[in-house]
């Protein structure tokens, strides 16, 4: 049951879009790991050989995050927990990139890709989650 009015529901669309993109990537990884590996426009092979089992393992995370976010679209009280879980995952992923860059696993210059695609994008997610949490707090305080 929707508990916020359409008028005040500013965060429904971003959460829905984020849910859809996570579900899409997760489903693709689960259904066809090799197709995902070769065709995702992100040069996945640049990170190493294909391991179908691990692709499916990671696909589970994306799919379940997407599912939780999808539920959060229609059940707004799920939004902060679902977005927090997603933020925690993406922050942990960013930290793995910091570690692997520091230990030289990535080729020189790779950090330039990470600044925009991993670090800044993750920061946007974290800020969005904080804004969403504040918005929810105001909604509860005002109700």
């Amino acid at each position: 049951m929707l508990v916020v009015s359409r008028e005040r529901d500013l965060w429904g669309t971003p959460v829905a879009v984020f849910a859809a993109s996570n579900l899409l990537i997760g489903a693709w990884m689960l259904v066809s790991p090799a197709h995902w590996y070769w065709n995702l426009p992100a040069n996945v092979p640049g990170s190493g050989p294909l391991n179908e089992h691990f692709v499916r393992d990671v696909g589970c995370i994306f799919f379940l995050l997407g599912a939780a976010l999808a539920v959060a679209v229609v059940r707004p009280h799920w939004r902060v927990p679902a977005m927090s879980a997603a933020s925690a995952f993406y922050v942990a992923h960013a930290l793995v990139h910091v570690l692997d860059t520091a230990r030289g696993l990535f080729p020189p210059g790779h950090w330039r890709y990470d600044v925009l695609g991993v670090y800044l994008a993750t920061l946007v997610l974290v800020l969005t989650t904080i804004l969403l949490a504040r918005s929810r707090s105001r909604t509860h305080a005002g109700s």
Partner: protein
Amino acid sequence: MERLLALLATPVLAVLPLLAFVHSQTHVDPHAPHGDHRPHRGGDVVMLGDVHVEVVRTDAVVHLYLSDPVRRPLPPGEGRAVHADGSSTPLATEGDHLVARGRAARFAEHYEIVPASGAPLVVPAPP
């Protein structure tokens, strides 16, 4: 203001799962050499930094082939098989690769390779 922030966040959130996987040289041809992590000799390929190591087990012999990011063969350098008790056995060099035989092939826990140039590599022993 909040409406604007929600609007700005939407496209970033849309592509965030994709951006999580972006690696250098955006979208190479999967058949181009850089995207080639397939075994060339029927073994298992591991990538350690920028070096590919193909590990091929045949009976009681393990062959280790080194290649660069675009799969050009690298000189083998030196290597040793390290066993669970901490002892080690040197690997032999045969042409373009390193070879482990006998105890070094059957009971190694991992292989330590010092390439002709670059950092030392630790390669798990094949089952």
